[in-house]
Structures are given as C-alpha cells and as structure tokens.
C-alpha cells in the first residue's frame, strides 16, 4: 500500500507531498490503535488490496494526480493500512510499512530522467499482485492443501 501510494504521489505536484505523507502516516497510525472490530478482517484485506490496485492505477492518468485526489488517496490508503495492521499485524509493522512510501523519491527521479514508463510498468505489476492477493481471499484452500493421490 505504501509503495503504491508513493508511486502515485510521484505523479502529483510536489507541494502536496508533505500534507499527503503526513495524512497517510497519521491516518494509518490512528487506525492501527483504534478498536477495529475483528469481524472486519476479510473486508479490511479486500479493501486494502483494492486500494493498492487503485493507487497503482493512478499513475496511468494522463494529467497526473490532482492535489485533492492526493489527499483523499492518502486518507484512504492510511485507513486501510491501519485497519489491516490493527487486525492482522502488530504495531511495529507500521514502522516497517510507512517508510515504503518513500519510494516516491526514486520514482520522481526516474520520472525526471524521462523514464516514467518504467514507473508505470512497475505499477502495473503491483496491480497484478493486488488482484491476485484479493482473489486468494475467495479461495477456499490453496491448491497445495488439496489431497493428492497419496491422501
């Protein structure tokens, strides 16, 4: 999620970066410590993966990321990140996840080298991973658990 947000922000005006990054960090932290109902676990993961795909897809917008959209995206991504960590992780996981948004800087450098297509290609891989991960939730059992001829 952090990586997807970082890549999306690379296509936003620089002036929105501080607010977006702070918004993401504060929102994620808030929902990490908020009492999120345990029954929301599957929903949180699904929302998280959908948000990853949506954030990664934003790099393909022809006009980049609008400042208000950047703020909204940061809020959204922070919410789902925090919820997932609260339900399925531990608070130190937040410290591992948040810095990943700093992929924003190498992405910006690559864009500055007029190789933005590389960022877009990597974002498409993220979308693929997100779609696959979201689908796994609906899988009753991974194929490896299915009984083989020995069983």
């Amino acid at each position, binding site marked *: 999620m952090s990586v997807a947000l970082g890549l999306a922000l690379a296509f936003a005006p620089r002036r929105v970066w501080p607010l977006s990054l702070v918004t993401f960090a504060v929102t994620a932290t808030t929902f990490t410590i908020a009492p999120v109902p345990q029954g929301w676990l599957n929903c949180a993961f699904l929302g998280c993966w959908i948000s990853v795909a949506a954030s990664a897809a934003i790099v393909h917008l022809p006009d980049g990321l609008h400042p208000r959209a950047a703020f909204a995206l940061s809020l959204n991504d922070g919410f789902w990140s925090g919820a997932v960590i609260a339900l399925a992780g531990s608070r130190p996981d937040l410290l591992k996840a948040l810095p990943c948004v700093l992929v924003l800087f190498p992405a910006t450098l690559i864009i500055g080298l007029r190789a933005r*297509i590389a960022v877009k290609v990597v974002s498409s891989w993220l979308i*693929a991973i997100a779609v696959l991960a979201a689908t796994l939730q609906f899988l009753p059992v*991974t194929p490896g658990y299915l009984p083989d001829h020995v069983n």
Partner: protein
Amino acid sequence: MGTGLAGGFVSGFRHPLSGSDHLLAMVSVGLWGAFLGRPLIYALPVIFPAMMVGGAVLGMFGVPMPPVEIGIALSVLVLGGCIALSLKAPVWAASLIVATFAVFHGYAHGMELPSAADPIGFSAGFVLATGLLHVLGICIGFLNGRRGGVVATRSVGGIIGGMGVWYLYRVIGR
C-alpha cells in the same frame, strides 16, 4: 512480505527461475518487445504479468484448461521463433500472442501455489520475478543497436525456439 520459508516471497520469486521453460518464455517476451519497439517494448511486460495473474486465478480455482505444458512449450517455441525471424507483428497480434501464453504460465503457477506460510508473498514473488525477466529480455534486446547485435539476438531467438521444439517433443512424447 513473506517469511522466506517454503511458499513465501523468496519461493515465489524463485518459481519462474526454477523452470527453464518459464524462464526462457519470459525473457523472450522482453526480447521480442525490444524487436518490436514502442509501444510493445513497454506494453508486453505489462500484458504478460496481468494475463498471467488471470491464468493463476484459473489455476487456483481448478478451471479446466487445455494441457498447460503444451501451451508453455509452444510459448517458448513461438516466441523464440518470432525473435529468430525478427517478426514484426502488429500491436494487436503481438499482444494477443503474449496474453494467450501468459495465461498458460499463470495457470501453472496457480496450480502449484503451495500450502504456504505466505501465499500472498509467493504470488508477489513470482509476479515480480516475471517482470524482472522481461526487463532482462529487453536489456538483451538493446544489443540490437550494436554492430552484429541483431544477428546475435536473432541467434538467441533461434536457440530459444529450438528449446521450445525440445520441450514440445518431451511433452507430446510422453
């Protein structure tokens, strides 16, 4: 993101590398894209992982498919042949060829998704490895700009195509 134990990110990353057929096909996608130029040099490394995920989903749900091993062997043969012949397919045709073969490769990955510590990490690993193999193919394709480079890369394509014939022979001959 995965424990690195059996079935985590590291296992997933290694999965496309563990089979020479997977590895050659994915490098070929990038290499053929380099021959075809824009926009396919960028589009093919996007199309293949995306469709591969679709194939993986089919594999995970056990949807019946034509023999996957034949599809994978054919992918190596066809893609190697396209490189060897320096075939300039139109965008829609190249995309369709790559997308079709990607489904077979994804199906194989999905069928083999382990009862893992981390199936999500495994999935992320094989998608990332696939993309990086495409990039490797593109980098090899940059040799085309050097003296004798086209002959060299077409020769590589010929070897890959020959390997595809071998894989197909092995699969059909069983």
